[in-house]
């Protein structure tokens, strides 16, 4: 018995350009076509993922998925949720109006800007992806939309006195063309790599830290966002389970996930046809809502569906989209003055969390020692770790200068585009790791 089915078919093109030390290694376009068919049988899901989908085969795949659903014993229910498709933002500068040659020329300019004295390697990579998403379900929901993302990253590797360091910058957008304005990113990568040659390894320990907007955004993503994902909560694998209404942080702290914003994590509608909406995970320091699919909303409650996302051909999971800390009323200067002695941490090399243990770790690209409230010497290879349930109480000041950054987030073998952001934050009693010694 088929209680429900849906089909999500994604087809499109990807373009990648790779310039390494001035050599155009590749500049190519490829094509993809993948679909996933989900069927809810008497208890759980049967799922078929297929490359090169043909609509004629839908009935056959539904039958195959129903047979697979026979393996399951978990009774799955779907909560009702509103359906809506937002308009896709119209690009002010559409990447598709530029020839591959022009894109290659623009990327070469960014890569060239990363070269300079002490720099021994530069590399820049452009990626562009346009996809058409078609969805249909047994509930009669049907939609189709086209969405594009494009952007680049640029790296400079500098060497001096046997020390090798790198600077890395990236810029991506939904339906935009950041490649046109990317030269300053190349310059920044070079400046960072060269400056890091003179930086000291950070010494670990407990101290006050100031997080810049990029790193503070990753902090919100790793320290709170993942643990608020309804599938992890349902499995009993999140320290936030059963804590709705509890105070987790200081008054004034609000952490949001919002796939309806036209940031890098934008979705006009989620991967199961549900309207994308703003979800305030933490409101004024209190755990307020969880992120859900229709299934986890029915199983767990306390939150909103509309957070289902999946790579083409993959089963949608509960995922973050645009995740951020709302502005407070402080400023960077106040954060530094209040920090007095500690570290100002800049940029992100990524992070990871174990939401069941409630432990997270993430790494800054670099930092500056703060001495007497003033940023001083540069430090490298500095990381931050902590426990979800304690850390947010340690936020002492929230500035009013929020910025968003773009990245990719991995979960369950799937990588999806996300935006993270925050204003500058001052954190007390942070566990800082580094390889430096006395």
């Amino acid at each position, binding site marked *: 018995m088929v209680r429900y089915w849906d089909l999500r078919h994604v087809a499109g093109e990807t373009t990648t350009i790779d310039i390494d030390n001035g050599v155009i290694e590749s500049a190519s376009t490829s094509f993809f076509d993948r679909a996933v068919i989900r069927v809810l049988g008497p208890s759980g899901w049967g799922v078929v993922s297929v490359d090169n989908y043909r609509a004629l085969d839908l009935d056959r795949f539904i039958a195959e998925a129903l047979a*697979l659903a*026979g393996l399951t014993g978990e009774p799955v229910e779907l909560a009702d949720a509103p359906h809506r498709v937002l308009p896709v933002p119209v690009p002010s500068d559409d990447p598709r109006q530029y020839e591959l040659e022009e894109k290659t020329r623009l990327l070469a300019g960014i890569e060239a800007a990363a070269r300079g004295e002490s720099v021994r390697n530069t590399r820049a990579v452009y990626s562009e992806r346009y996809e058409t998403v078609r969805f249909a379900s047994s509930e009669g929901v049907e939609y189709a939309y086209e969405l594009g993302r494009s952007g680049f990253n640029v790296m400079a590797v500098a060497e001096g006195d046997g020390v090798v*360091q790198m600077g890395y910058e990236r810029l991506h957008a939904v339906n935009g063309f950041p490649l046109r304005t990317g030269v300053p990113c190349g310059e920044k990568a070079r400046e960072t790599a060269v400056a890091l040659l003179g930086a000291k390894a950070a010494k670990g*320990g407990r101290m006050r830290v100031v997080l810049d907007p990029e790193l503070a955004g990753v902090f919100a993503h790793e320290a709170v966002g993942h643990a608020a994902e309804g599938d992890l909560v349902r499995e009993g694998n999140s320290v936030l389970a059963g804590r709705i209404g509890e105070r987790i942080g200081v008054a004034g702290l609000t952490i949001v996930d919002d796939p309806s914003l036209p940031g890098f994590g934008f979705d006009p509608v989620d991967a199961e046809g549900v309207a994308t909406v703003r979800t305030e995970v933490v409101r004024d320091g209190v755990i307020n809502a969880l992120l859900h699919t229709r299934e986890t909303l029915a199983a767990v409650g306390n939150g909103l569906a509309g957070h289902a996302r999946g790579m083409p051909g993959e089963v949608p999971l509960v995922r973050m989209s645009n995740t951020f800390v709302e502005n407070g009323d402080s400023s960077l200067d106040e954060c530094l003055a209040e920090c007095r002695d500690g570290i100002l941490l800049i940029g992100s090399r990524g992070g990871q969390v174990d939401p069941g243990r409630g432990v997270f770790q993430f790494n800054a690209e670099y930092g500056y020692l703060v001495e007497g409230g003033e940023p001083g010497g540069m430090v490298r*290879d500095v990381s931050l770790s902590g426990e979800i349930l304690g850390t947010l109480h340690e936020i002492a000041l929230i500035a009013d200068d929020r910025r968003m950054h773009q990245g990719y987030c991995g979960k369950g073998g799937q990588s999806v585009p996300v935006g993270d952001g925050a204003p500058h934050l001052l954190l007390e009693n942070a566990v800082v790791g580094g390889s430096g010694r006395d």
Partner: protein
Amino acid sequence: MDEIDAILRAASGRAEEAEVFFSTSESIGAELSRDRVRVGQAGHAMGLGIRVFAQGRVGASSTNDPGRWEACLDAALAAMRLADPQPWEGLPMPVALPGTPLALDPSLSPAPATVAGLLASMQEGAASHPEAVVTAGSAGLSRSHVVVANTHGLRYEETETHASCSIEAIAGTSTGYEFASSHALDLDPRWVGEQAAFFAAFGAGGEPLPSGTHDLVLSPLALASLFEAVLLPALVGRNVHAGRSRLAGRIGERVADARLSLFDDPHRPMGPGATWFDAEGVPTRRLDLIRDGVLEGFAYDLRTAYRYGAASTGSAVRGGYGGAPSIGFHTLVLEGPVSEVMAKPAVYVRSIVGAHTANPISGDFSVEVSNPCMVEGGAFVAPVRTAMWGGNVFDLLDAIEGVSAETRVVGEMVLPALRVSGQHLVG
């Protein structure tokens, strides 16, 4: 696939050389959510990758609709015209390869009942530590087929099978994870379940560790995550010549403890990446990277080898059909001085949170250790609370006290547990 010859014929008039990579795969899997199966899953995958070459220029494109091969070939030719010319001496000619499959279990077929059996056995194993509960798990079986063909008449085919299972458990806020992966249906799912539940149950309620210098025993999982982030990229020829490897220019020098050796062994039967030919049709061979602590060589594909006057080491790999092959490893084996690594007191590091944030160039890292516990006399003695560990992957290779006799497969690596001294932890 019938189209392969058609593509090579069409390409040969428009480029000097061409290569086709075609893969198909049938898979089946199921996922646990706590104590019940929530999803049963099947996959039908296919993909076609085309590369074309002329005057040192290379272009690539891919599609998973073989019916669109003409558009894919056009895109590859357009890419070729844009690429900068580089030294190129041609795709490989065909040679006779042994026909024996290296990674195939003929008895393994993607059957739903087998997958359900793997999940049930893992659950039984986990039940031996009732303080821990299963949060999630999965099992999967697949059979895949690849063809590499080129305009020199080379056409190699290989079929491989794969079985895997994994499970996560929790006790309070202590989590445990275990997995197994093999080309044959020789997994021990009961052991996988038992291990995950053991680490969850044993890790609950640890005391903080004093900050300072400690001896560590790194599990193969912990070691693999650090190697993947830093050491493997540093041994890739392209990174070496592009100035992105700290090991550049150090061939013949001692870079590790004199008792350590690291080599790629693609012909090891049932090795994780076992194969007779690499992703561009070059016959594979044993590749010594570090022998007795001395750096012996780097891994090359054809493109990097031609450019820098080296020879391909048969190290081209593909993550899928898409894009171009890159340089990687097939079955990377670490050998060292075998000892009872858990005899003397040490902090056992089961896994690491944040290894991917290590600095891939300098090797410096600062990570969170998961499921740490004190070991002594060959046994797990007491859990400790999570700690930060700062260090350097290259320095680790010289801080070796010993390796375990037992090894396990993690990704493309076959690794022992490793005991290292003088490591700095912040509790």
